[in-house]
């Protein structure tokens, strides 16, 4: 599951990867004609829309690819860098960059590209950018207010607009194709002749059609997470195919037995977890089941995954999702922490056992009530010393 950095590809190797990615990036930019300012600013004067075509095709390809990878569980979006939103600096910075674009004829990436093949104007542009960054750095206290205003976090655009990812992706695809067609008409008018490159109308109609189809598949690929979450919440009764039950006694036995296969997932609010947590348990939220750290644990073969919550309703949803995601051995602690506390941790023998079996059960619970609170205490000390590890979101951006 992606991203491959930092686990499959280490942080040092990542620098080598960066060089190779850069080579591919620079090669494609130069082949596309982004190494000449005349071509780059063409779209602002209507004589050459190459930039718009390359840019939007690239953006759509990557966007649809990211959605598909996310859908098939090949990419953990919670670990991918999503540029944070700072509304006012994004608008002001963007406008200044737009001005820089029509005055200078390049943007940073394309200027590097053009300088590499010997364009002196691009080298001057890079020199200018260095000065521009320097001015920003020196005057930073002046701009800091604007720079940090309206911080909205790592927002996704479809959440802001309140639509689904699929709908937004489809609309964007449709808009891009409309823009491709409209700009080709404008270009022909401005230049007084059609670009021979696009003479094969049938092929382009076919391509546009295929792209719209691919855009439409975004609907057929609703986000697996949203889907399963809503299914988990709308199901009122789960079947025995969805998960199995585990009694408080069995869980207590496995904990005392130091069962190496046991993995406990605690779905209670984090303050409850901090106050009292079972040994070897993880505090998770339902959505963590779709993230790399937890997926790694769930996908270990032969492990027994026990989910519990305060009662057992949230745990049932979690175990259901885990099963639907294809992981095996999912159990729900019957009655949740409430039962476990009553029957094990705070157990007092009522002394009215009628059957031999009940006598045995009570005896077991008494011994468990003596041992488990101790284990819980030891666990708390371990946690306080900070033994938890978590994969972090990568830091990206410019």
């Amino acid at each position, binding site marked *: 599951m*992606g991203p491959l*950095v930092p686990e499959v*590809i280490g942080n040092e190797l*990542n620098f080598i*990867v*960066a060089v190779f*990615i850069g*080579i591919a990036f620079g090669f494609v930019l*130069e*082949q596309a*004609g982004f*190494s000449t300012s*005349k*071509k780059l*600013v063409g779209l*602002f004067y209507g004589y050459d829309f190459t930039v718009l*075509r390359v*840019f939007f*095709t*690239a953006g759509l*390809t990557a*966007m649809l690819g*990211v959605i598909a*990878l996310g859908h098939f569980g090949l990419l953990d979006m919670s670990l991918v860098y*999503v540029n944070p*939103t700072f509304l006012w600096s994004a*608008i002001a910075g*963007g406008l200044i*960059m*737009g*001005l*820089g*674009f*029509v*005055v*200078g004829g390049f943007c*940073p*990436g394309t200027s590097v590209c*053009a300088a*590499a*093949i010997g*364009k002196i104007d691009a080298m*001057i*542009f*890079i020199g*200018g950018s*260095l000065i521009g*960054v*320097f*001015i920003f*750095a*020196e005057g930073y206290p002046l701009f800091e207010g604007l720079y940090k205003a309206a911080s909205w976090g790592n927002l996704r655009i479809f*959440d*802001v607009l309140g639509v689904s990812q699929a709908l*937004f992706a489809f609309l964007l695809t449709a808009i891009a194709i409309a823009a491709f067609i409209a700009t080709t008409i404008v270009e022909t008018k401005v230049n007084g002749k059609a670009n021979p*490159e696009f003479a094969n109308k049938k092929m382009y109609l076919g391509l546009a059609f295929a792209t719209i189809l691919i855009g439409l598949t975004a609907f057929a690929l609703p986000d697996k997470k949203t889907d399963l979450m809503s299914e988990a919440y709308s199901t009122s009764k789960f079947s025995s195919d969805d998960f199995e039950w585990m009694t408080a006694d069995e869980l207590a036995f496995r904990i005392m037995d130091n069962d190496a296969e046991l993995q406990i997932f605690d779905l209670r609010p984090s303050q409850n977890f901090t106050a009292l947590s079972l040994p070897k348990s993880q505090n998770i939220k339902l959505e963590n089941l779709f993230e790399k750290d937890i997926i790694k644990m769930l996908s270990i073969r032969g492990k027994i995954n026990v989910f519990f919550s305060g009662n057992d309703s949230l745990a049932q949803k979690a175990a259901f999702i885990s099963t639907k995601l294809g992981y095996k051995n999912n159990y729900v602690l019957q009655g949740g922490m409430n039962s476990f506390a009553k029957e094990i941790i705070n157990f007092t023998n009522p002394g009215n056992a009628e059957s031999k079996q009940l006598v045995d059960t009570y005896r077991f619970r008494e011994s468990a009530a003596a041992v488990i609170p101790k284990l819980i205490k030891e666990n708390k000390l371990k946690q306080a010393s900070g033994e938890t590890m978590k994969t972090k*979101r990568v830091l*990206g*951006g*410019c």
Partner: protein
Amino acid sequence: MIESKYMNPYLAGFFLGIVLLVTIYITGRGLGASGSIKSVVVASVETVAPAHSKETKFFKEYNSEHQGSALKNWLVFEVIGVIIGAFISGLISNRLKLKLEHPSGSTTRARIFGALIGGLLFGFGSQLGRGCTSGAALSGMAVLSAGGIITMIAIFGGAYAFAYFFRKLWI
């Protein structure tokens, strides 16, 4: 030797999209360019005026967020790659040539001045907007980041809004 034609823009866009997708899949982050310019500025100031760099807020904040040398940065390595890749492309398409390119209607002087001021504005704007056309607009679109898409609209919207006033430079 005659320069080869440029690649079909849709095909080039598709390849660029694949490069970006692979980048996100491998590294969990998108492409970029202006970040490397920032790294160069930070490293230069540190070398030339270490004392100044220690007491200026911008550099202090940068150093508290980054470890090691400013040049040991993913984007610096990526941009080194961009130079190599563009050079190879220019080589095989016979476009390697040292020249100052300017449209026929404009002068060399205007082009030099425009490139310098334009670069300055772009460099400044990319810091304020947290990324440029690659890092904010293109990569932001791929992961549907709200901030990235707002920046993208502002860049292209701004360029269209200002284009009329600078038409003499280009047409």
